[in-house]
Every structure is written in C-alpha cells, then in structure tokens.
C-alpha cells in the first residue's frame, strides 16, 4: 500500500504490483478485455459529450477519468448481482451490458430512464443524491430473505457521504448484515466543493463507525478495483455484511456539461491527475509485457469509433415520446381520473387537427 493507504496493483507507470490481502487471479485475456472496456467507455463518454455540445442532448454527466473505478467494480459482479447507480455510472452500465444508447434517453429528454432494470440487473439512474443506497440495501435485504447467493453494489460519490440517506443505508446494512457493497467514487469534487468540505476523515474510515470494514483503493487502477470489489462481494455473499470501498479517483471533466470547473479548481490539479490516467497504465503494462501489439490497440480504436458512430445515429434517430406517455405509466393499476384527464387532453389536441381540415 502507498502512503495514502491505497490498494494498488497496477502503478500509474504500468508496473504490476502484488497486494497479499487482495490477490488477483486474472488471465492475460481478461486484462486485455478490461483494456477494451476502458477504451470503449471513454469513447462512449467523449461521444455523448460531443452530442451535448452539438445540441443533441440537453445535458451530459461525464465519466471521464473514472473508467477504471466503474469497469473494475462492474466486472467483479456475477450474473444476478444488482447494481444501483448514480447518474454517472456509464462504465458499470457497459459492464452490465446495458445498450449504450439507452443511457442517453434521459439526457436527451426522451424519458426519465429508458431501460428495464431487470434486463441487466442495473437500476435506473438516480438523481437525488444518495437515495439509491437505501434501495440497494433494501434489495440486499430481499436477497437475504430469498436465501440467494447474489449481492448488491451501491454507487455514490464523495458528496453523497454527507447525505442522511447514505448514513442510514450504512446503519441498516450493518445491523442486518445485508449483502451489499457500498462503492464510493471519491472523485474529489461535488460540483464546486472539494472533498475537504464534506469530511474531516478519510471516507473509507467512516465504515469503522458503522461496524464494517472500509478500504481505499486506487480508483484509477482497474485491477486493484476488481480485486478489492471481488473480496467485498465475496464477504457479502458469505453473510458477513457490507463493505465500504472508497475508490480514490478524479473527475477529469466537469460535474456536467452545464458546469465550469475553471471557476473553482486549478488546471494544475487536472494535469497531475492526467499522469495517473486509468487507461494509459493498462496500455503501458500490456505493451511493456508484450501482451498486446499495435494491431490489438488499433482494432479496439476501430471498434470504439464504430460504436461511437452507431451511438450518434441511434440517438439522433431516436423517436420522440408520444404524448400519451405523460399519463400512461403513472400508476400500475387503473386510475379513472388520470384516464379522464388524458382523454380530455387528447380530444383537445384533436380539435386542432379537425380545425386544420376545414
């Protein structure tokens, strides 16, 4: 571990280390696959950011710089493990197999969440900070009652640790030994507020006060994140309760495309974190160890370009929602008042169409 008490398996220079507490059993093929994930997720995020700049999305929350934290933890999950994301977990969605274009729907204003969470065990994005950590805990309590061998992972950021809901989730999960892993991406910034404005202690240390282990991992090290998350999930499955993982990373982009970080942080800080880039270190390792050649990297670049191009086409061609959708999903069971309101509005709209004909 480094001076920051950071679990690290792949140094920023691409040097493979070992951590006796977190042994990682991984094949070269798996590391190459993780590299592909990282590149694809970054390319996806770059394309979505461009789409926002071109007016095709109303907003975008970039995952730039957090790819290793998201891909590493996402790839630690087994089928049936359920993930509860914030609104930035594009890398976890990728690992879970959610079609990329589905993530853009809410940012384009087509819907508030356009995928079926049960298809990929990946819940909808949650915008109210920290709320989903309780949903994850409750879902884990359900798994417990089902005597299933699955676990849950709850994503949240450093700012969310100040929320009551997150602290209540820690409490519930702890007293019930719920099979949930709390995965905090400490990207150092909650919009304009640095981590120092949220906490006086390292976030992973908070777990001790709730009675479960906390660990800080290099969030830009996909191998360390994978190893640490696997251990935490195994603990959850074994009925030993929750773990808090603090993935120490950096928000390389703005909070969202509406934000302007130049108003509150120094460019120098970004330059320092660029040296710890999550993708560069895997590439260095693969290159230096002779585990991948130029063709391998070029093929992935090509694949990423094709994905980005398809994404662009998919979202621009996406159909706008139909008007009735406003009313259609408010209740699961029949609701006569809403039905009447819908019919009245449809008739109102149709009255204009009739007028046009005259």
């Amino acid at each position: 571990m480094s001076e920051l008490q950071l679990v690290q398996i792949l140094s920023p220079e691409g040097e493979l280390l070992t951590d006796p507490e977190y042994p990682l059993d991984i094949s070269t093929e798996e590391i190459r696959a993780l590299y592909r994930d990282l590149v694809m997720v970054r390319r996806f995020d770059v394309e979505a950011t461009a789409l926002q700049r071109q007016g095709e999305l109303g907003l975008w929350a970039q995952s730039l710089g957090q790819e290793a934290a998201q891909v590493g933890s996402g790839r630690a999950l087994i089928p049936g493990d359920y993930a509860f994301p914030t609104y930035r977990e594009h890398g976890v969605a990728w690992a879970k197999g959610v079609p990329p274009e589905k993530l853009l729907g809410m940012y384009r204003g087509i819907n508030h969440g356009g995928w079926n969470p049960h298809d990929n065990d990946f819940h909808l994005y949650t915008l109210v900070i920290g709320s989903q950590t309780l949903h994850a805990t409750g879902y884990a309590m359900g798994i417990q009652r089902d005597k299933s061998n699955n676990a849950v992972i709850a994503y949240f950021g450093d700012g969310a640790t100040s929320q009551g809901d997150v602290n209540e989730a820690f409490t519930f999960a702890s007293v019930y030994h719920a099979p949930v892993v709390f995965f905090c991406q400490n990207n150092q910034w909650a919009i304009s507020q640095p981590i120092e404005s949220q906490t006086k202690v390292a976030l992973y240390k908070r777990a001790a006060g709730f009675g479960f282990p906390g660990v800080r991992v290099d969030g830009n090290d996909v191998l360390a994140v994978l190893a640490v998350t696997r251990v935490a999930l195994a603990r959850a499955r074994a009925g030993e309760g929750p773990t808090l993982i603090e993935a120490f990373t950096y928000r390389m982009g703005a909070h969202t495309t509406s934000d302007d970080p130049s108003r509150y942080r120094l460019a120098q800080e970004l330059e320092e974190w660029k040296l710890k880039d999550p993708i560069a270190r895997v590439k260095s390792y693969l290159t230096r160890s002779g585990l991948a050649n130029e063709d391998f990297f070029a093929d992935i670049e090509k694949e990423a370009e094709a994905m980005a191009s398809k994404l662009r086409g998919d979202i621009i061609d996406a159909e706008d929602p139909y008007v009735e959708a406003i009313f259609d999903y408010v209740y699961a069971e029949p609701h006569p008042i809403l039905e009447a309101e819908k019919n009245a509005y449809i008739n109102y709209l149709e009255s204009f169409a009739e007028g046009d004909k005259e």
Partner: protein
Amino acid sequence: MITLGKAINMGLRRALTEDPKVLVMGEDVGKLGGVFRVTENLQTEFGEDRIIDTPLAESGILGTAIGLALRGYRPVCEIQFDGFVYPAFDQITSQLAKMHSRSLGTLKLPVVVRIPYGGGIGAVEHHSESNETYFAHTAGLRVVTCSNPNDAYWMMQQAIQSDDPVIFFEPKRRYWDKAEIDEAAPSLGLHETRTVQEGNDLTLISYGPTVRTAIEVAAVCAKEGRSVEVMDLRTLSPLDLAPVFESAQKTGRVVILHEAPTFLGLGAEIASQITEECFYSLDAPVLRVGGFNVPYPPARLEEHYLPDLDRTLDAIDRAFAF
C-alpha cells in the same frame, strides 16, 4: 365487536398469511407490537424476517422498503406518528411515487405506508397532524383512510394487494372505536366513497376521524328537522366524487369536514370540483369546516383547533342561510 386498531391487525395478519411476500417493517413494530399495538403478536407468528424492527430512521425504512419491493416483496411500513413522516418525504415523493413512471411501467412498487394521523389524544407536538394533502398532491401515490373497523380490516388488505404505493392514514383517536366486522367479503373497493346515511337537505362530506363527528352532527340536525346525507370519502387519491356530485345535485347544499387545515386541504379541491360539476344545482356555496391554518396547537388547546360538532352545525346553519 372489534376495535379499529385490532381490525387493522387482523387485516395485516390475513395478508401476511395469504402472501409470503408481505412484510411489516417499522420502529417498534415487532416485540412491542407498535406504540398503538396495531402489529401486536405478528412477530411471534411470522418471525423477525417478516415483521422487521427497524433502526430509528424513517427515510431508511422507506428507502429499504423500495429496495425490497424491487426484489418482489410487498412491504407495509409503519410511520410511528404523522409528524415523523417528513424525514421519509423524499423517499416517498421522489422515489416511491415516481419509480413506476420513471421506468416506463417496468417496475412495480407495492408498498403500503401506514400513518396514524390526526389529533384528539392529548399528545405532544408532531403527534397530531393531518398531513394527507402532501401525499394526495403527489402523482403516483394512492391515499386512503378508514373511519371504522370493517373498512380498516378490508382496506388494509386491499391496499397491500395494490400494485401501486398506498399511503394508508389511520385515524388514531378512533383506534379504540368498536364495531362488528364482516370477514366474508368487502362491501366496497379500495377507491370508493361510501354514503354512510342518506338525507335530502344537505350533504356532509368527511373522512377518517371526523366521520363519527359527521354522523353525530346528522343526528342533531335530524332533531332540528334537517335531513343530512353523510358521506365517507375513504379514498383521498384518487377521489371518487361521482356519488358526491349525485348527492350535491339532490340536496343543493354541501359542507366538507376534515381535521386538516382548510387552506389547500382536500375540502378545497372537492369544493372546486362540486362547483364545476353541480353549479346549477347548488343553493349555497360549498362550505368547509377544518383545522385552522396554524401549527397544531398544544394539547390543552386542541379542542379549539379540532372541527367539532358545534362548528359543523354552525357551518350548516350558514349553508341554510343562503
């Protein structure tokens, strides 16, 4: 004869027996049986995994109930007192109410939130509020309240069977009211208004704890030669106002009685809809009797705050003065 509190207990017990996915969760609901004993003996019968004593955190109760519902369970959450629901307000209004819609209908949230509400028991602050309007104003929620043991028994089961979230308001000062219950079959659906007694001269609409007051008012009016039709709304969202319109068209005079503050209370919505639907049948404006627009007062003043028999009779006199 069964008390209203016991009737809810029996309704919960039957739902727990019939569906293994039904859970009860809240503060002190297990060993203690709840501060009003509504969940008494359930933990002994159904175990700690199904009757869950939770940490003291309302948002936590609702948030984990949502997660359990996503996993296929049907949690019934108890909020210990009306004034303690606000820490869970975000989970109820932003998450529970909207998740079905947000998921374009793919997720179902069959969660019941039980809230003992209203005053009249001499309690300290935060223990006597009628905050149903907040929830009735939130799309995605269903809001109901019972006024008698038979409704309490059946409506609890119907609320648990609903695939939508239901906020279930329990009139706490009526927990000890006794009546017979019919365990064979419910007399009404969850979202139906009941005509408690028929009358020809004025329609008196109420729900929850003040239905008994309304029945007492009608008895006094009868002695004065005024025939009052009493209606128990039962469902606050969606409202079932067709029978109310029919009654208003018959009597031409309407008074609405509830404990909640009148400003933007349910009465305001109902009065507005009656005006739209029954304008030419009305002989007087629709009048409201309710709580004042103040924080719920200390116990020694609550008799002034709570709309009672005399204030309702006064409103009825005013309705007849037009």
